[in-house]
């Protein structure tokens, strides 16, 4: 295995949780809800996935537990912001803090245990393609899911009727309401989809990335996922580009250090963020396109007239 291939394998593992959490948040935001609790839902997913795996011995049940816990946890956010119309920013931050605390508590007795790594699914023939085979066709289920989800979300948002409705809710909830679309229900579903994806991203952390549970193990990846949504200007495939760009730069800097190229490590550590900012500036020069993609009702509460 060449070094380039090795780097790419590491990049894929590092980028997958970012892509997953970001694609979920993208759908949530497209419906006009800003959920800053991604980090909390992710770390809950990581804890529940690990615990379920240790209890049952099956990482696939762990994945389900991660998805379910993320979705359930986001339901709390949905209830507070959609039903009780609490402030979305404050509630999202609270969700993150709560998630970090609760996951630390339920996971306490699992710290230090060695987990079960999610097995690879090897596609026959395809996986024998030189270079691309091991990278793309000898991966775990969560990686395949991440790509499928992005494709699915793209199709859903821009090719399906339900997706059109969801986008209309995110752009103008009053108009959508007037057209007879159930705004609150749509947003509930979008929030839960976001939670499920964040939970799946968490499961990737504790079952694939580092098969173990450590308190606060998401270590800020939820925030990076949130930033990725803006970076992608709310377009699904750009999430993949952004996530892999960020992953590539942050992993290459570690390999560069091990190679001993002699650039100060603090600068190298800042590189992923610098690269992201540069790309963001480049793609946002077209203000009209940015405005078209931004959900106009993002973060605004909806209270139907009686």
């Amino acid at each position, binding site marked *: 295995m060449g*070094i380039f291939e*090795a*780097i790419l394998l*590491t990049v894929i*593992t*590092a980028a997958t949780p970012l892509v997953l959490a970001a694609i979920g948040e993208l759908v949530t935001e497209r419906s006009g809800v800003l959920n*800053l609790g991604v*980090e909390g839902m992710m770390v809950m997913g990581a804890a529940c996935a690990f615990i379920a795996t240790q209890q049952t011995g099956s990482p696939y049940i762990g994945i389900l537990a991660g998805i379910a816990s993320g979705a359930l946890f986001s339901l709390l956010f949905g209830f507070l912001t959609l039903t009780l119309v609490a402030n979305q920013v404050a509630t999202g*931050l609270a969700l*993150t*803090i709560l998630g*970090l*605390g609760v996951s*630390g508590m339920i996971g*306490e007795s699992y*710290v*230090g*245990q*060695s987990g079960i*790594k999610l097995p690879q699914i090897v596609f026959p023939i395809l996986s024998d393609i030189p270079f691309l085979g091991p990278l793309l066709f000898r991966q775990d289920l969560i990686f395949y899911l991440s790509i499928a989800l992005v494709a699915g979300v793209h199709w859903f948002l821009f090719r399906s009727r339900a997706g059109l409705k969801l986008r209309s809710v995110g752009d103008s909830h009053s108009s959508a309401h007037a057209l007879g679309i159930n705004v609150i229900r749509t947003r509930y579903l979008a929030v839960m989809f976001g939670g499920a994806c964040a939970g799946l991203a968490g499961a990737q*952390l504790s079952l694939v*990335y*580092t*098969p*173990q549970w*450590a*308190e*606060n*193990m998401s*270590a*800020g*990846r939820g*925030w990076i996922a*949130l*930033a990725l949504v803006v970076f992608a200007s709310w377009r699904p495939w750009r999430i993949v580009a952004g996530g892999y760009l960020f992953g590539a730069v*942050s*992993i290459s800097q*570690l*390999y560069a*250090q*091990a*190679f*001993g190229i*002699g*650039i*100060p*490590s*603090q600068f190298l*550590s800042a590189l992923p963020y610098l690269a992201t900012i540069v790309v963001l500036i480049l793609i946002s020069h077209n203000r009209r396109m940015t405005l078209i993609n931004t959900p106009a009702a993002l973060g605004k509460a909806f209270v139907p007239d009686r």
Partner: protein
Amino acid sequence: MKKILFALATTAAVIGFSAGASAADKAKICFVYVGSKTDGGWTQAHDLGRQELEKALGDKIETQFLENVPEGPDAERAIERLARSGCGLIFTTSFGFMDATVKIAAKFPDVKFEHATGYKTAPNLATYNSRFYEGRYIQGQIAAKISQKGVAGYIASFPIPEVVMGINSFVTGARSINPDFKIKVVWANTWFDPGKEADAAKALIDQGVDVLTQHTDTTAPMQVAAERGIKAFGQASDMIKAGPETQLTAIVDTWGAYYIKRTQAFIDGKWETTSSWDGLKDGILTMAPYTNMPDDVKALAEATQKKIESGELKPFTGPLKKQDGSEWLAAGVSSDDGTLLGMNFYVEGVDDKLPQ
């Protein structure tokens, strides 16, 4: 955004800690942790020390702790909260808490402070540290014996003297066995991020190191080493559970005795500012069992440990050269503690440029 989160998290932690009705006659001994008390590494070791303290002096004192306190301005607020809440003696257990501790110590002259691994003292602020580098010297020797390729990987956190000292000691130990031994260093620029530490481990292993050591706090590198079938050293706590067939040994921090000694002095009214820097012989660090290595290597490690404990061997003893080839210590001369505590250069054999 992360900053905001941390600020909020700290506030939550401060509000959240047990506000149980404290008996007025019991002295309150408080701890500030940079990580979670179950991190399996650095902070867990401090918390075990705190538990030992409670066991030993539980009838005279009560303890309190704050977990996950970020280094920087938030630490100041957390420490001040503890000082205000009636803590008599506060241990701040991370290098990055230094300036915050100094500042709050000046503000509360009646409260005693102890800062781990720092170098700034005041009439009510002591420092304490452990000669971890003694353990790293032994690890270096083991690495030189075990490694087929003569290259070890070193996952470092931040370029502070403590970490640089560890790297240098490891290399010095390794070169006492194999004069051509080299190490590759990757700075993770974090103490605690399982994912990033695992990535760093992969980066090192992919580039040919066959022994891994770390100066970060989670067991993730140990796990990667186990997966890739190479050997590794644990850090701060015994990490054998993460790599039953991987861990060679680990530096285990055992702070309990120190916490008991200092708290006793505090209760007796005999607490004074000190700069304590104990080592293997004082039991403030111990080596986890030497495992997964041939018997002769184990014997060598045990012999070296004995020599360090008896004072016969000092890891930083010349002839030693700096990375640029200039002489650092002449033959037979040992480094003074001041140089070690401010260490900002590499010795020969480190394949990395020290971030300044």
